[in-house]
């Protein structure tokens, strides 16, 4: 090949590459614009706002740079066990109570459903419907059921409990309706994921366990549980992230009650931002939420390497 043809074909090649580049950019441009405008820009703006003291209603001119003051205030509230402390601790309580419980129940139900069962599809549907139902509608249902004069207390009275508690007033009980609601709705999703994971457990392993004389409980403990551990890990991560963002059920159930006895991180951010328009402080609080989610995601990356092999 002569020198000039090599040059010629290189030119042709680079022209083709340039064209590939252009077409590629054209294809991702809509996604890139949406990403920059609705995610990247607001994210960095949120970081910037977290270093300001600014009430939205007072206009841009009143925006003040205050450095780390907001974060110092968060720490102060935390140390004095005030608002932010309650929000953070409550959020942790919701995560710790709902995540393991719902996952454990979902696994047992999925394991039973995966065996020979009549009306399998109808049963699966019954467990699934709460998950696809409007969260606000379900929160309204739970709020009315747990009211002082609601069906739960009526049932308790007819069972012979003379003084059933007022679920929403009692500080130590007011989380229970929300915890039950979250568990109830989360199970449907976890169940479907577990059922598809269980289908991938080779039947030969159960047969081998049968030959060794293992009972049903032993098979579950020694064969099923280790083999679905990657799925369990995945569900723990997904549910943890979801439960740190808990908002709608709490907001609906505390609607109309004078004292905010129940909060969460997002409820607190919402109240600061759109109740009192303290955008600077609320942005700082949202950064705490971001860091928590970031940590969970990093644990996910680290854990995947260790967990996702049998």
């Amino acid at each position, binding site marked *: 090949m002569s020198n000039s043809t090599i040059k010629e074909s290189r030119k042709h090649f680079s022209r083709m590459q340039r064209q*590939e*580049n*252009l*077409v*590629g950019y054209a*294809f*991702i441009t*809509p*996604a*890139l614009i*949406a*990403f920059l405008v*609705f*995610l*990247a*820009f*607001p*994210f960095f*703006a*949120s970081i910037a*706002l977290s270093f300001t003291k600014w009430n939205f209603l007072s206009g841009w001119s009143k925006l003040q740079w205050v450095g780390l003051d907001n974060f110092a205030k968060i720490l102060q509230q935390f140390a004095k066990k005030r608002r932010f402390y309650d929000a953070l601790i409550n959020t942790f309580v919701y995560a710790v109570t709902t995540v393991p419980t719902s996952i454990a129940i979902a696994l047992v*139900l999925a394991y*039973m459903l995966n*065996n*020979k*069962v009549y*009306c399998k599809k109808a*049963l699966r*549907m*019954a*467990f699934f419907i*709460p998950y*696809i*139902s*409007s*969260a*606000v*509608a*379900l929160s*309204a*249902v739970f*709020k*009315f059921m747990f009211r002082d004069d609601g069906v739960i207390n009526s049932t308790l*009275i*007819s069972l012979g409990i003379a003084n059933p508690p007022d679920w929403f007033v009692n500080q130590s009980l007011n989380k229970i309706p929300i915890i039950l609601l979250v568990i*109830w709705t989360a199970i449907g999703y976890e169940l*479907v*994921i577990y059922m598809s994971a269980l289908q991938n457990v080779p039947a030969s392993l159960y047969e081998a366990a049968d030959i060794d004389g293992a009972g049903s409980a032993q098979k579950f403990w020694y064969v099923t549980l280790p083999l679905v551990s990657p799925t369990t890990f995945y569900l723990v991560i997904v549910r943890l992230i979801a439960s740190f963002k808990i*908002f*709608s059920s709490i*907001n609906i159930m505390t609607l*109309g009650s004078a004292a905010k006895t129940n909060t969460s991180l*997002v409820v607190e951010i919402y109240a600061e*931002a759109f109740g009192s328009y303290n*955008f600077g402080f609320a942005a700082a609080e*949202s950064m705490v*939420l*971001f860091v928590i989610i*970031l940590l969970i*995601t990093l644990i996910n990356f680290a854990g995947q390497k260790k967990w996702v092999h049998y």
Partner: protein
Amino acid sequence: MKKKERASALIRTVVLALISILFILPLVWMVLSSLKTTPEVFARPFHWLPNKFQWHNYPDVWSTGAEVNMLRSYYNSLYIVLFSIVGQLLIASLAAYAFAKINFKGKNIIFMLFLSSMMIPSQVTIIPRFILFRTIGLYNNLWAIILPAWFGATSIFMLRQFYIGLPSDLMEAAKIDGAGHLRIFAQIMLPLTKAALVSLIILAFISSWNEYLSPLIFLPSKKLFTVAQAIQSYMQDEFKQHNLTMAAATSAIVPVAILFIAGQKYFVEGIATSGVKG
């Protein structure tokens, strides 16, 4: 042996059926309460069936006489869901095809950037989005909910995996015939991703239908209320007609549940694929 197997299947079915009744009971309570009078909803001793079925509760919440009504809010919610899903999946399909099948400069960096955005919860960006929408006049507009949904990192990621799995031979053959990327994408590749798109539509529907925080912030005027906001507004109603709240809640849940029962096969696969990571 056969007999024993059948017996244990029967026991399992009965146990699961009892538990499933417990799962459905709150929904049954909701439907029956929606057909009572409010004092009956909280009557003591409690009775399940209404003394007289109050069927008019449904026309009451659906008729367009009231400022907040289910018809209006259904329209708003469906409008948001429809345009969110169409926009998100179209944009995600284009991007996913490019990431999988086009060799352009910097594609890995942009892809990593998109992926890492999954770590940012929407609650973290909501304050600047509020300022943005106030500034550009999208506040109190359904498109304030729709437009941010158009970037879906999960959709892009899942569709990219799907496009990578599609054989490139098809593409090469079409290229020789002189087809450009746009034609290959629209006529050959996109139709092949139907299964993945159905899964993503289901996931997007659930999250969009359930959206509550951003409508609460961006849609203050009653005529733009979504279904979730309408239920909240019935709860806060000064006349405390909680039978109507339950009629609104039933209206929000039952049609969707029927839709999902009808398409059970698709949604179970759809949810399951979302959990199987590529």
